[in-house]
């Protein structure tokens, strides 16, 4: 068979398929099939909300005088603290897996061999990670919001506006944790190292630095200070630790988003596969 004839035959075998974001779908497929990751995400984002409201309901039912209703604004505020932290951890796990998973499995090499742009391969990870992280956080939030409304009893129930603001706040915090972990993990190439570094920073180091008042306005550069500025007032327990303008907080958040992603994208583009 001549080359020309063979090429014509091979071309004829090709059929059209519908247009859709295939790389993102593929990234999401890789993520959602990791049972351990999905179960960890559920255990962090959903299970604590179910357990917390179940306990609140039980203690209220056992002693209504001593323990108030399970719902209401105050319980929403408390549970949002927990949900934000734990969904952030879940997002870090997802981001670290997205950034280093292909490298550690050797699949990155196979993807590069397709000729697809390395930047496109990197970029597809972001929406896929957000889709999973937001699904998990959203499920946890749905439980929290529903319980705070349904079980408010005699307490003040959260307004629809506050619920929307809280959802947006949670989405922002989850997304920031995800992109931070994704960027670092893509740059470092190690899931374990990324989880350790980002969790250590987010859970331990950054909160300690935020509380050191002698650092003054330097603290405005911390992600925690910037996000606190955008936190719905009704969810705050105390006064804001670092006074700063909304514009400054948006700028700091943008920097904490762009820099890790740029670092991850650069390393993905330049590393030997």
């Amino acid at each position, binding site marked *: 068979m001549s080359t020309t004839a063979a090429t014509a035959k091979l071309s004829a075998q090709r059929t059209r398929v519908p247009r859709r974001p295939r790389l993102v779908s593929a990234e999401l497929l890789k993520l959602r*099939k990791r049972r351990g990751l999905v179960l960890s995400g559920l255990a962090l984002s959903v299970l604590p909300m179910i357990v917390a409201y179940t306990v609140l309901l039980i203690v209220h039912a056992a002693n209504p005088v001593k323990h108030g209703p399970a719902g209401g604004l105050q319980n929403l505020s408390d549970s949002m603290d927990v949900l934000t932290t734990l969904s952030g951890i879940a997002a870090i796990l997802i981001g670290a897996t997205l950034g280093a998973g292909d490298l550690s499995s050797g699949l990155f090499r196979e993807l590069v061999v397709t*000729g697809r742009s390395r930047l496109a391969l990197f970029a597809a990870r972001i929406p896929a990670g957000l889709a999973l992280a937001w699904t998990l956080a959203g499920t946890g939030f749905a439980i929290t919001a529903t319980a705070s409304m349904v079980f408010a009893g005699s307490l003040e129930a959260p307004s629809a506006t506050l619920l929307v603001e809280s959802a947006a706040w949670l989405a922002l915090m989850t997304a920031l944790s995800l992109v931070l972990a994704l960027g670092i993990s893509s740059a470092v190439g190690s899931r374990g190292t990324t989880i350790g570094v980002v969790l250590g920073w987010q859970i331990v180091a950054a909160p300690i630095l935020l509380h050191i008042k002698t650092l003054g306005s330097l603290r405005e550069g911390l992600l925690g200070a910037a996000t606190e500025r955008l936190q719905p007032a009704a969810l705050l327990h105390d006064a804001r630790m670092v006074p700063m303008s909304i514009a400054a907080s948006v700028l700091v958040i943008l920097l904490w988003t762009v820099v890790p992603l740029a670092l991850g994208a650069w390393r993905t583009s330049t590393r030997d596969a």
Partner: protein
Amino acid sequence: MENTQYVVETSGLTKRFGERVAVANVDLRVPRGSAFGYLGPNGAGKTTLIRMLLGLTHASAGTMQLLGRPVPRERAAALARVGAIVEEPRFLGHLTGRENLTVIAAAREREAHARIDGALARVGLSERADERVKRYSLGMRQRLGVARSLLADPELLILDEPTNGLDPAGIHEFRDMIRGFVAEGRTVLLSSHLLDEVEKICDEVAIVDQGKVVAQGPIAELAATGKQTILIATSDDEQALAILSEHRAVESVTTESAGMRVTLDPESDAAGDDISRRLVLAGLAIRRFEPARRSLEQRFLEITSRLEDAA
């Protein structure tokens, strides 16, 4: 552009890792529609060259063209019609075979999705396609690797040590598969350290050693060049040995059960005729006088040992 005579062309291609030169000034031409062997001992720089061709690592110097397109400048367009297995094919163990192909198809042109079932059938994995890859044997993974490279509908298949870890039946099957690809008009660039394997599968070969291509061409031509060997048996081998050892064209004589294996200086034309004449004039009856069938292995060993001597 797509019908160039050579599917791979490199010029002065070089890769350095610090002081060490892994690929040294390689000029390689792989003809379209052939099975081309890239043959060399372990550590000769075969995989490094393939990794440069595929854009997995940068070249230190030189130029490359894949399917007539310069790489890395037009790498995406060139690799769209290239399928490759580099070293051991890697997969996500928690996904099924079909899902692994789906992931790679997503990175290729849209039509790649439609080729998944056909590719799985081609390598005989349709029945096991929905099992997780972590349960696959090494042979099944190799076949899945081939199926994955077929998603590109490749004009060029680059296979790096593809028979590593396969049992004899698997190797035989693999050999047939590769010849089938060539029969379809595809080109196969096969990198291997297994001489016998390359000789059985390939039409042309480049022999590489210490990062350099030391010989290149059709296998039959390559094997025929170099030192000439003649198998001789006479009525009195001791006397024949004395005659042979005095002949200036004879480089070495090895005594075997069926006679003698005589290696001649490749520069000496008609040395065989002269030897036979001298043996007859000495009154010996010649029972056997035939050129030994030269294999690629002999040529390969000659070339690589010559290099070792020079070093």
